[in-house]
């Protein structure tokens, strides 16, 4: 157990240590069925969330659904992506809540969080720049370079996020004696 120096407010590690002692966290951690079910939901939702996002990215790369206007693909698919994302965040938060301290200290979890932030920035950049002028290239079979770069970045980041997420289960680089 690491004891944090007391300072103003609560450190992130201190917060995780407090979280770990809450009854529901212990119950979730020790549950025979609920934890594996939540984890399965997290994995299966990949097909809904990332699946629809990948199809949209592939459209932006101009390698599938070339006859579908980009704005229509986005308008029709993104609600499903968003629903999948909500399930991902809820199940992911529960998985973190079940094992807060080990997860917080895990290098793969930290890599995943950084890539999630980068992925969010990529979405924001895309929507505030090249997608604003989508009307000009909506019907192009192969969208402009900016859109293709954003789509490629998105695919790379999400692949990295999936791999890092899978690796959280491994403790190769965990700090010994903390949990």
């Amino acid at each position, binding site marked *: 157990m690491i004891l944090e120096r007391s300072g103003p407010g609560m450190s992130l590690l201190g917060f995780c240590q407090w979280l770990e002692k809450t009854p529901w966290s212990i119950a979730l951690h020790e549950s025979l069925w609920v934890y*594996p079910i939540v*984890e*399965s939901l997290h*994995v*299966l939702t*990949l*097909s*809904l969330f*990332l*699946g*629809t*996002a*990948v*199809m949209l990215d*592939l459209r932006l790369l101009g390698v*599938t*659904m*070339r*006859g*579908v206007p980009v704005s*229509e*693909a986005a308008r*029709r*698919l993104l609600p*499903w992506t968003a629903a999948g994302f909500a399930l991902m965040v809820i199940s992911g938060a529960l998985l973190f809540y079940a094992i807060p301290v080990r997860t917080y200290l895990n290098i793969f979890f930290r890599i995943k969080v950084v890539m999630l932030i980068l992925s969010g920035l990529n979405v924001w950049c895309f929507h505030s720049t090249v997608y604003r002028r989508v009307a000009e290239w909506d019907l192009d079979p192969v969208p402009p370079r900016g859109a293709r770069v954003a789509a490629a970045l998105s695919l790379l980041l*999400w*692949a990295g996020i*999936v*791999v890092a997420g*899978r*690796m959280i*289960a*491994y403790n*190769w680089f965990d700090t010994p004696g903390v949990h």
Partner: protein
Amino acid sequence: MASLLPVFEWCENTAVGNAIRGSLWLFPVVESFHLLALALIGGAVLVVDLRLLGLGLRRQPVAQLARDAQPWLAGGLVVMVVSGILLFLSEAVKCYYSAAFLTKMTVLFPAIVFTFTVRRRVAADDETRVRPLWRKLVALVSVTLWTVVAASGRWIGFSG
């Protein structure tokens, strides 16, 4: 009937099986490809199934969407099967005793056959000739079969 256990034991003792089992990082790396293929297959299947249900890209012709999604579905399945065989070789004996593995294999074959026969035919057919109810049923069967395959697949990791 003779037990299949010797076959599974032979699989586990292949050079590939031993190499993956003996390595710290090979199993999770191969599994990561299995998961990425899950996302790709999920997208390629859902785009068409949602459309068959009258959701998603419902202003687009089903046949065209199915044609567009087909190579990504096929490519995803190839990655899935290759990575799946590698994972299986590394822990074949565990799979032999796993009810989840048996469930997955039992549902996987009808899922693949259904996808490349009934579903393919219905998606490619002229929309005026196939009743909407029939199309929706095909989409629901497709989503259900693949969900059972994915869920029982995940459960192999929890068993044994």
